[in-house]
Every structure is written in C-alpha cells, then in structure tokens.
C-alpha cells in the first residue's frame, strides 16, 4: 500500500516516455484508429470543403514547433484541403515572431510531399502570399474589417513571373478581394490568445471563421462555436485526427452503399474522401495510438494514487 502511494518519479517519467514511444513501432494497421467526429470539427471541414474553387482564405498561423504535435497537423490539414480545392490563401501571424518562418517551413514540407506524389506545389504569389508578423494583431484585424484594400497596403511579395516585388493586392490571391466579405473564410491555427483578438473583431462581419486550436484552448474556444461566432472548430490532437478521418473517409459518403463512417446530419450533401496521394492520414493518426497509451497511463496513475489513499484511510492512517 505504501508503495502505491510512493512510486518513484523517475519510474513514472520512464513509463511515460516508453508509453508514447512504443506505439511508433506498431504496424500502421494497428495505429489507424476508428474515431467519431464532433459536429464542431465536421462543420469546420464541411465549410472548408464547400468553398468555391479559387476562393481566397485568410489564415492566421500563430504556432511554432513547440506545439507541432497539435498545430502542425491542423495547419497541414488546411494546406491539403487548399491544394485539393485549389484555394488561395493569405498567410499572416499575430502572436509569435517565429510563427511566420515555421508556417513557411511547413508549406515547404508539404510541397515536397506534393511533388513526390506528382501534384502541383503551392506557389508563392500564385497560390498564397505571406504577409509576415503583425505585432499588434488587434489593429490589423480592425483594418481588415474597415478598409481591406488599405490593411496590407505596405506589404509586397515577390512575383516570380515579373521578377520583382509587387503589392500583394496585385497577386492572384488578393486582386479580386475588395472587402473582407469577399474572403471565402478566415481560419486561425493558434496556440495563443490571438484567437480572441481575431474573433472579437471579425465575428459577425459577414466572413465565416474557422478555428484550429490546441487542446489546452479547446474548451474555452468552443464557446465561440456554440454561440455561432465561429463556423467550426478543430481542437487539439483529437481535432487533427477527426479532420484526417474526414479527409480519408469523406462525409456522409459511402463508396459501397453501406453506412457512411462519418455522418453529419446537419449537412445534406456528400463529400468524397481526398485522394491517397494527399496522404489524408498523416500527423494526427501517427500520434493517436501514443495518445491512447499516455492517457491510459494517466488514468492508471490517478486511480492508483486514489486506491492507495483509500487503503490508507481504511487502515486509519489518513487524517
């Protein structure tokens, strides 16, 4: 009983490291885990997949490698959808000086994946423009809603065809966007309170918002979804897995006439899965078995601690 209450901390650290590492060596057939999808994640995915081809999405990327376990999967899920749907996007950051570079590295990683699969790469200027960091995101979002054509007036990007820097408003990404209402959607991938800053200024202004947040932020940011301020949410690693599940299995879709794996009663249409070349099951699913192992260990540790306490109480040793 005493032992139950006094397990060595180093042993627990070791157990945790082993618990998350061992599943990496399991065959992939064991690590593809059937997962139910939440309505909030379904709505995010459906909204993104329903955007007309060629739409421009404004994406705020406020994550660094410190939250790669969650945010990279979310950002890359968006990039895959953008590639599949031919969406154009404006990339900016409002929270961390390292975030713009991390996002560009992530695009480079996916581009090499696309290239290997024989797919067209996401090209700067034609498919996306990177606007960098805004140290005061509040005033930037305020500009986006009040005067979109002036909000990024000082920003330029390199046009490879012209061989020179040009105003981002001349790029194929932004040339047809006159006001923020012309944007297909605004998406934020964040590990910080930059979400609040954006939602507080963009919600209710006629542009749909999608949020991809970390597990720590998911419960509080779900309020925005429940009150209709944002159109959908993907929360944490589980959110990534749900996005990947929909990318690989479709929504309300069944190839063989059987029960669709992902059923979205709020959506009357059908969405087919993404092609295998886009690797729909990627980062999220690779980590999901490890998350199971870690959570089981956590539950076991809490139960063990409490069983020890109860036994001690029974013996009359506890105060």
């Amino acid at each position, binding site marked *: 009983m005493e032992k139950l209450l006094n397990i060595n901390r180093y042993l*627990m650290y070791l157990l945790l490291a082993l618990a998350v590492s061992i599943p990496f060596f399991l065959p992939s057939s064991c690590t593809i*885990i059937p997962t*139910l999808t939440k309505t909030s994640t379904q709505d995010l995915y459906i909204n993104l997949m329903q955007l007309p081809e060629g739409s421009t999405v404004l994406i705020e990327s406020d994550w660094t490698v410190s939250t790669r376990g969650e945010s990279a999967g979310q950002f890359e899920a968006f990039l895959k959808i953008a590639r599949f749907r031919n969406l154009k996007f404006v990339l900016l950051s409002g929270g961390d000086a390292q975030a713009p570079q991390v996002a560009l590295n992530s695009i480079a990683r996916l581009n090499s994946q696309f290239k290997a699969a024989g797919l067209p790469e996401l090209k*700067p200027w034609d498919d996306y423009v990177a606007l960098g960091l805004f*140290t005061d995101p509040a005033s930037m979002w305020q*500009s986006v809603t009040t005067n979109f054509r002036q909000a990024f007036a000082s920003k330029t990007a390199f046009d490879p065809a012209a061989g020179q820097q040009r105003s981002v408003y001349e790029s194929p990404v932004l040339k047809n966007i006159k006001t923020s209402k012309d944007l297909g959607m605004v998406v934020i991938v964040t590990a910080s309170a930059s979400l609040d800053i954006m939602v507080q200024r963009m919600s209710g202004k006629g542009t749909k918002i999608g949020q991809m947040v970390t597990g720590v932020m998911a419960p509080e940011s779900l309020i925005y979804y429940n009150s209709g301020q944002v159109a959908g949410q993907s929360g944490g690693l589980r959110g990534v*897995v749900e996005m990947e599940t929909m990318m690989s299995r479709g929504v309300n879709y069944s190839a063989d006439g059987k029960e669709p794996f992902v059923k979205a009663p709020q959506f009357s249409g059908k969405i087919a899965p993404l092609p295998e070349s886009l690797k729909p099951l990627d980062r999220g699913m690779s980590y999901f078995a490890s*998350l*199971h192992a870690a959570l089981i260990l956590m539950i076991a540790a809490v139960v063990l601690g409490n069983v020890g306490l109860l036994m001690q109480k029974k013996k009359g040793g506890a105060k």
Partner: protein
Amino acid sequence: MLSFFAQFSAPGYSPEVFRNVWITLIVGFIFVAALSFAPTKLRRPIVWVATFLAGLYYILIWLWPTPVNLTDSDQPLGGVEATGRWLTNAQSGVSSITQTLTAMLLGLGVFSVLRLHTNKLMKKQKDWAFSLVLLLSMFTMIAVAYTDYYQNQNNPKLVDQANWGFFQYAKDFLFDGMLQAMDAAMFSSIAFFILFAAYRAFRIRSVESTVLLGTALIVMLSLMGLAEYYLSKGVIDRITGGNPGHFMNNFALAEVSRWIETNVQGPGIMALGWGIGIGALSMGLRLWLSLEKSGGN
C-alpha cells in the same frame, strides 16, 4: 494612406524624403528633450492626453456613422460623412503606427536581456560564461539571419534549397535545427510533471475534487478515439440493435461527453469569460481615461 500624413509626404526614396526624415527626427528629438524638462505637475496630463487621443480614435470609429458604399471618387455629403471617411481611411495608418510602436516596445524585453547579461559578463559575476554563450548565440543568430535576408532580397532564387549558400544553411540550422527543437523540448517536458503531479495530488478528498476527477476521467476516456468508438458504437449498438432512434443512444460515451461539454462545461466557462470581459472593459475604460491612480506620477 492617412490623409493627414499625405500633407507630409515626398516622392518615394528621393533625396527630399530622406532630408525630411532627418529634419523630422531632429525636431522629434528636440521635442523629446524639451519634454524631459516638463514640470512634475504637467507629466500626468501629458500622458493622459496621449492615452485619451489614442483611445478616442477607436471609440469614434466604432460609434461614428460610416458612409455606406462611398467610393473613393464620391464626394462626402457634409461633415458627418467626411469625418466617417477620414476615420475609415485613417485605420491603416493607425495600424502602421501601433505595429511600429508595439515592435519598438517589444524591443524593451530584448534590451533588458542584453543589459542583464552584458552586466553579468562585464562584472564577471557567477555563471558569466553562460551569459557569454547567450550573447554569442544571440549575435550569431542576428548576423546569420540578416545576411540570409539581405542575400534573399538581392537574389530571389535563394528561396529554392537547391540554390542555397552558407548563410541559408546556417540560418536553417540555427532556426529549424536548434531553436525550434529546443522550443519544442522545453514545452513538451511539462507532460512529465503533469503526470507525476496528477498521480500525487489528484485525490478524492472533497466533493469538488471528486466532481473534478470524475469529469476529467470521462473526458479523457472520450478523447481516446478507440474507447469512445467502442463504448458508443460497440456497446450501445449491441443494446439498440443499431437503431439510431433508440433511447439508449443518449447514453453513449460520445453523447455523454458532448452533453457535459454543452450544458455544464460550456456555461461554466462562459460565466468565467463574462466576468473577465467586464473586468477587461472596466480596465480598458480606466486606462483610456487615465483613472488608474499609479499612471503618470
């Protein structure tokens, strides 16, 4: 651009603009020098005026009627429309000002680190060698990153890794290979502490802790896709015979955790948020109107 600033403009990159920049700078520094002699009783009003005018802009842009569908070629009708247009056009200029000032103030933190470690190094205080390492790393990163940026500006082909030179590899090594790996390692180590802390402290000692523990366990189970799937699809489907209209579907783990999320967790956090919101609003008004007692003395 801000129409007010248009009165103070010159052709881009011309000798005239640089001359005027210098003159403005000199005037600005003279003004700052004069300000430093301001009598004590004037200091608070000076800060108050600066703060109030800054806040007033956002109050006005929210409350002032904005002309609907007024194009650049249209003439505003009367002062209300003209002011509305001025406020709207001013937004990007205001944004540039706040971005710049915020960036300069963020530099304060950097300056503070630099000052602390330079002092430590100069005075050869305890662990000064670590300060030396810190400063070396900092200056190496600055030198490498700026050189890479400068080279990229002059040779856009460097975006492609096939054309990289020493500084591109060096920047990638320092940023992606070292800084990002360290950043990730630093944050991920918290997981070990959470596990051990939960084991040692997450105990059923009161009603509150029991409720907290119970909910946490349900949520952790529901986050495990496999557990949720089989406790929802497997067990419940066996009971209901796969009938989606069966009453027992309400007790699937997925449904229970969603119910908690929507009806208990959601309003609880919402209530907390409202409290924080009212606090932020009152703090915002106090700051804008300089009602904070400690301001400007």
